[in-house]
């Protein structure tokens, strides 16, 4: 990660990446005036949010402001909810995901999602890879093994589990399970990763490992992470989108480079939130 060592206040011991300004970048995922209603209740108001390629994009804001719902909408997990109304569009790799010809299996191969609870299928580690890989057409045993090994190595788990691939994934520690979940997604060779508070169920050491992992992964993947942990966002995010709620529904308040959001936000709500003055 390239860092800018010069322009910082003493009080903030954070080296932000020298991220370019926001309108010059390629965005693998482009959320375009997307609004979501469930049961006639607005979850979030129409918002536009480019998710920049090969950067860590963080989504911060209080609980209930629609951050997780936004992630779910991007891979159309909202399809399984009843009475949803979606306005606007989401472009993934320049394709509108709401187009009627969208192949959901293909979409979910391109954009992987990692949930808050680190829960692999309570099956063997091998089976956890086998199921999704087979679905996506990788059927040969040797191919599956190769994909699995590469992915486990990418998350630094290979050394730890290589000799017990037939053991249940539930035997692993929380941090290991979350890395397994990430590896399981990586094995499908996605282009983007959506992470919904991936560290909130983990201890600080395990969280650090995941954070370092994300820093490495961003060179190859587009990352959108929801986090409640502001210091985590400070540590790893290149770009930050801040959501807030009013009238019981979510709204995008501000989106900018991480240093701008944390040091010099333009909206007073953002300023209060990042200083910890609101909850």
């Amino acid at each position, binding site marked *: 990660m390239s860092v800018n060592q010069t322009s910082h206040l003493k009080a903030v011991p954070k080296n932000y990446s020298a991220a370019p300004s926001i309108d010059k970048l390629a965005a693998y995922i482009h959320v375009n005036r997307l609004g979501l209603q469930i049961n006639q209740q607005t979850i979030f108001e129409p918002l536009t949010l480019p998710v920049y390629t090969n950067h860590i994009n963080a989504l911060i804001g209080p609980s209930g402001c629609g951050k997780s719902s936004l992630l779910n909408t991007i891979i159309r997990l909202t399809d399984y909810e009843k009475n949803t109304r979606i306005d606007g569009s989401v472009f993934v790799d320049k394709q509108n995901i709401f187009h009627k010809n969208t192949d959901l299996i293909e979409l979910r191969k391109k954009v992987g999602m990692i949930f808050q609870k680190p*829960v692999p299928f309570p099956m063997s580690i091998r089976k956890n890879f086998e199921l999704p890989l087979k679905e996506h057409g990788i059927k040969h045993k040797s191919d599956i093994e190769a994909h699995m090994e590469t992915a486990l190595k990418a998350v630094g788990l290979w050394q730890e589990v290589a000799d017990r691939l037939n053991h249940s994934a539930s035997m692993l520690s929380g941090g290991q399970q979350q890395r397994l979940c990430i590896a399981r997604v990586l094995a499908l060779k996605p282009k983007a990763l959506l992470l919904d508070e991936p560290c909130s169920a983990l201890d600080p050491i395990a969280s650090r490992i995941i954070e370092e992992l994300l820093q490495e992964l961003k060179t190859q993947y587009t990352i959108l992470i929801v986090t409640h942990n502001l210091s985590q966002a400070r540590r790893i995010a290149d770009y930050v989108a801040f959501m807030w709620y009013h009238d019981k529904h979510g709204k995008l308040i501000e989106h900018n480079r991480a240093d701008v959001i944390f040091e010099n936000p333009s909206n007073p709500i953002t300023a209060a939130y990042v200083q910890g003055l609101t909850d």
Partner: protein
Amino acid sequence: MIKLPAKQQMADLLLKITSWFCGLLIIFFFAYLLFDILLHGLPRISLEYLFSQPLKAGREGGIAPMLLSTLLLLALCLLIALPIGIASAIYLAEYTNESQWFARFIQRSLNVLASVPSIVMGLFGYAFFVIALQLGFSILAGALTLACMVLPLLIRSIEDSLRNIPDIHRLNARALGLSDTRMLFQVLLPLAAQGILLAVILSVGRAMAETAALLYTSGYVTRMPESVMDSGRSLSVHIFDLSMNVPGGEQSAYASAFVLMLLLLIINLFSNRLSSVIQNRSTR
């Protein structure tokens, strides 16, 4: 210890004794039943008893045809009920929720079906399978009737075990791009395997003990069944017939009861072992 007033101490003691006595009573009934059956049944039990034809209406000889009929009935009953049961449970657990009238209607129907007395079920089986579908008194008609009887139990337990699977696994499966079919067959059903097996065991127990429903449907001839279209007498019907209609058949009835109980016991013991094996196999 806090010293309580004498009156309260008395009450506590009384409660203790009463509950202890009730516990003892249950053990006593079970032990008496077991002892009674063993005492009267065991002298008749031998390999020959298990594998030979009954003589003199069952007073002498063995129970080979009844054993075969019972096993055929059970196998056929499961063969019919299990696919329907699993499919309905999947529909109820995965595709419906309480708010849909159709799902509620199915649930209600299951509740009613579950509480239909077996004699009524038997009459239904007779009217529908034996007469209307012209299956005659046959093992097939009996198995179909038994299947109707165990279906509510089967569907309910399988539905429960599917509903008990945490939603996060469905979410993960979908987010990984798994098709609904693969999710169902390779994630949800393996995770529910233990529950399904338990449901099967309960159903087998229920079906094996069933008498009334079979009297009218699979009949009670004592010869060896030649096919599933042939009439056959189940062990429970055999016990009923020996004790009610055959003077001097008591000892043989006891022996058959012993065999029936032994079968149930074996199935129950095996089920524990089997369920852990299934769980391991299906998730490895």
